[in-house]
């Protein structure tokens, strides 16, 4: 059987990831939502690291938390920051 602390880390990380994803959906300020998604990617990379895949964790941290955030932030800069109701 898997050990309890291992399972506990999985559960905490899973709950935090769902929480940050829900925050990203709920926020009206798109820039803040992008930062919430960066937090999601960071938690996901931590999860990969716990599951003994440091290669994937590294790629996820660099691309998910770093580059995708930068690209989204640049895209928001050229459009508008606040979400509008259709």
């Amino acid at each position: 059987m898997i050990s309890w602390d291992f399972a506990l880390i999985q559960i905490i990380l899973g709950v935090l990831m769902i929480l940050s994803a829900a925050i990203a959906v709920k926020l009206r300020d798109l820039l803040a939502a992008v930062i919430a998604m960066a937090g999601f990617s960071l938690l996901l990379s931590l999860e990969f690291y716990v599951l003994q895949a440091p290669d994937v964790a590294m790629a996820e941290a660099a691309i998910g938390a770093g580059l995708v955030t930068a690209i989204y932030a640049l895209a928001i800069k050229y459009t508008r920051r606040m979400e509008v109701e259709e």
Partner: protein
Amino acid sequence: MRKGVAITIFFVFLALMCYLALQLHPFGEPPNKDMDQYFIDHAQEEVSANNVVTSIVFDYRGFDTLGEATVLFTAVAGTVAVLRSFRFKDKLAVKKLILMDKDMSVIVRTISNILAPIILTFGLYIILHGHLTPGGGFQGGAVIATGIALLIVANAPSKVKRMISKDLLNAAESLGALGFLGMAFLGLFSATFFFNAIANSGFLFGDKTPLGINYGNLNTGGTLPYMNIFVGIKVLAGLGAIVLVLYLLAKGGEEE
């Protein structure tokens, strides 16, 4: 009404995922272990690399990596092709863009000047030690691209345009892709496509690696370090080009 349907679907999906998670194999015990055991037993001797993951990615399963690299190449080529000739038509938008053409604050620029060299060095370390420690060309290239993005975003678009050339990045990406393919074709001379021809040959990066647990010799790995370097150049140039092209849109209004 629609919200209720969405929430119901969400919870059904969640229950299904939890059920499937319980049905998974125990952690670390895949159904077909024979091939894993072969890689673990023979990677140090055949590929002469301590990092078995990299030896699978670039040697045993090199063909898959070639497909992955092609996906990234296509994505970058498509993004650059769409964005390079894009111009804002609206007068108001152009005015707004010209206002945007300035450096970030002194705080951001100072921090990015301190952080960027450290990030770039760390990325280079990941690329060069890809055959010994976790990481490799993709991961290191992505880390370096993050550092480049930091440097790009901290400075004004007109200044960035003078400093980094988009054509240089595109050329570097093509060079990385060609070098990766060249190393793959090098295997064709001795056995098959993606055969590790340099491993254990005594050439640069061609030392034998000691079996079992060892300190890790940088001069091992055969074609893996070369492929790591080429893929690293390709990834950092490709991802850097996307950020650069997107950032230089702010310059687009001024040129007409």
